[in-house]
């Protein structure tokens, strides 16, 4: 079509029609009425993996609380003559799973315990694995949560102060963190495990001593970004004191990030605890943690795989769910934020 032709072209009524008729309605639906948190929640609910994660985490936490009381055993009661029995569950045994059979022999019947049911089997000393797994999950969760909460506290304050004041304070604090960070976590945790008396508190302490560094980095980075903003300047001009600015103006703005980071830290803490157990520096016997249970079961994995299976499954599920949950949370809070 030449220019001449175009000039002569006549438009008809049906040459154009509305392309976005429906979309205009959408624009009308204003976001101003939904709060930030509702928005986050809506985003989060769309993520199937994250929902799965939450459900499993909640289920596991509930079981960790009530699980140890669902039968008559305690985590340390030993019935030595009932040692090393494979899992057996009423009803399910009729389906050919969890039937107490190993190598074609029903060990319950063979050893004269036809009426007994160990849902996850019994360990090499005749303790109920079901009870121990949930007891262990509880201990692991307590260790992980406590360690992470302390990490947040220390890391956040450290990062905030370091980032906000800058200058010599920042350089000194960063150098210190860098040096501490220069020692591989496993090495420092192992050595601390050796120096400190065995126990949950020591493990938490050992995990904490390097765990806060990541947290402090994030909060420092955020502070560096935020402190140039006008609203901080406004606060300062109005005479707000430094700590008031840090805790009232900056802290609330980085909270989302901290929460996300801590959700990623929890599985890491569980993992480190498991490693400590492997070097023999885990929770003191007969207390159980997921790490120590795996470590115990691992010693007979080739001959009695059932002892390790349940704790591995719980650990894997727990970590999987926490990761999915954290992923979902991150996407919901800030779809643009990258993995830290």
């Amino acid at each position: 079509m030449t220019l001449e032709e175009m000039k002569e072209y006549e438009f008809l009524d049906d040459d154009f029609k509305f392309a976005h008729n429906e979309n205009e309605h959408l624009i009308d639906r204003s976001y101003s009425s939904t709060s930030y948190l509702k928005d986050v929640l809506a985003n989060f609910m769309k993520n199937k993996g994250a929902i799965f994660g939450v459900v499993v985490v909640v289920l596991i936490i509930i079981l960790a609380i009530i699980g140890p009381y669902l039968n008559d055993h305690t985590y340390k009661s030993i019935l030595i003559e009932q040692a090393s029995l494979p899992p057996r569950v009423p009803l399910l045994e009729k389906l050919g799973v969890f039937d107490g059979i190993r190598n074609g022999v029903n060990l319950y019947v063979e050893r004269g315990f036809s009426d007994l049911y160990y849902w996850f089997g019994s360990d090499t000393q005749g303790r109920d694995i079901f009870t121990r797994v949930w007891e262990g999950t509880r201990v692991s969760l307590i260790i992980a949560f406590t360690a992470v909460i302390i990490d947040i506290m220390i890391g956040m304050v450290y990062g905030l102060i370091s980032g906000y004041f800058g200058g010599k304070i920042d350089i000194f604090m960063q150098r210190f963190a860098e040096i501490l960070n220069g020692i591989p976590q496993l090495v420092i945790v192992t050595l601390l495990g050796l120096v400190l008396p065995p126990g949950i508190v020591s493990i938490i302490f050992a995990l904490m001593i390097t765990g806060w560094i990541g947290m402090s980095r994030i909060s420092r980075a955020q502070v560096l970004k935020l402190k140039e903003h006008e609203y901080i300047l406004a606060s300062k001009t109005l005479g707000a004191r430094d700590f008031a600015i840090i805790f009232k103006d900056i802290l609330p703005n980085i909270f989302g990030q901290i929460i996300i980071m801590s959700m990623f830290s929890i599985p890491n803490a569980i993992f480190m605890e498991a490693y400590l157990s492997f070097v023999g520096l885990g929770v003191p016997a007969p207390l159980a943690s997921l790490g120590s249970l795996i470590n115990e079961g691992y010693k007979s994995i080739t001959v009695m795989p059932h002892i390790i299976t349940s704790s591995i499954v719980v650990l894997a599920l727990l970590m999987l769910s926490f990761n999915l949950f954290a992923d979902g949370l991150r996407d919901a809070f800030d779809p643009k934020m990258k993995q830290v």
Partner: protein
Amino acid sequence: MKNLRLLVIMALVLALFTGCSSNAPSGDEVDETAKVVNIATDIDLSSMDHHIATDGTSFIAINSCIVGLTELDASGVVQPELAESWDVAYNDDGSTVYTFHLADAKWSNGEMVTADDFVFAWRRLADPATASQYNFIIETITLKNASAVVAGELPPEELGVRALDAKTLEVTLDLPVNFFLGLMAFPTFFPLNQEFFEAQGDQYALSPANLLYNGPFVMEEWVSGNSFSFVKNPDYFKAEDIMIDGLNFRFINDTQSAMLEFESGNLDYVRLTGELVGAYKDDPSFVERLQGYLWYLSVNVADESIDSVNLRKAISLVIDRDSIAANILKDGSIAADGIVPKQLAVGPDGKDYRESAPTFVSTDVEQAKALWEAAKVDLGVDTLEIELLFEDTEASKAVAEFIQSEIETNLEGLTVALKSQPKKSRLELMRNGDYQLGLTRWGPDYADPQTYLDLFLSFNNNAGYDNPVYDQTVLEATTGVTARDAEARWEMLKEAERILLENDCAVIPIYQNGGALMVSTRVQGIELHSVGIDSFKRVTLD
């Protein structure tokens, strides 16, 4: 898309192969026809210096390539080795003189093994500068002046050992020690060639080349953290008795991995631990043994908050030791009857010590409950928490947990706090008296009850046990006039054990260590000793 996938796969293959090609070519192919026994060890070889070595693996290795005056045969009876024969002279003051006549044996550098090699070796052993952890053993045999030399009060030259000529060695003991000849088969007493030793400087015994051999095998290779191997020594003076071409030790920390390798046929000898014992119990290769190690609960008597003989007796009575042996350890361990283990020593009557000595340990829950009530009155408490220290090995942990469960189920109000520590730390804590109950063990140094009873002398134990009657009884039996009368001595040792266990209940014996092994059916003639070093010297292969 396809191209990309291909690219990545190619890169992957490439990466694997570059990894491959960077390796040294597998040069030393194993000679399939060589008769070599492959042995798994769960502890790395610590030292080949027989004055420095302290652990079983090192002693087995040393024992394979160096020999001493005597050796133990398969049933543990003393046989001549480097010493062809010996004379014994008893003096009136109780001192005893042994004169050994040496056989014609050679070191691997061609030098003859002479009496001077023994004199030099023993002087080095006693010299404080050597700082040998096993030098106490030279005092145990009551070698003349040994204590003074070890303490640095006399020069090593004053030791009661001398070379009458190149082939004759004279040893003077203060007492007629009846286990002396057996100890001569122990590596700490093996000879050492002075000239060679001095030529090596501080490198002595750090590699196969820095070591001299006079035994059935010579060390061929030693890769720290991995393996060490021996080949037959053609110059060994009894080389015709050795039926295999070599020994190959692999250091494998994890028993399950070792068993996978055993089942693949690459190993002939694996020590089983934990649940694997139960799993292989019916296998034709399964071998059970009894070791001299006795595990017991050491009670810190110095800690007044638990110092009650009734408490100790209650704890002792409540533990079902047979169950520990049969259900937890399952490796041939047996319940302890006393503090002196079985198959340790044979008395003047020709019977095992434990056969004639009474059983001092039993299980009786009702009596234990009554004693616990009495103990509460003694200590003035209603409830008590007691700490049990143990080392972080699988077996110790299981036994400690079982003891805790036994005590807490049966003795109401008595709770046990378990404290797990690595072995070295546990020993340190116990040495400092920083414990209440400690699960510990003792391995015999020589075939006599004395090796156990000495432990609880007031100046030897860290548990604060101090009973003058006990001290007097043991010392009279071992160093007093009674020591010269074998039968009276034997009875007195039993009396000492009775005081220790029945009267004072100062220690709580638990079990005597067994051991479960997997030995390939093609291997015969491994000699397992409950006292002394296991030997692979006379192994034959089908």
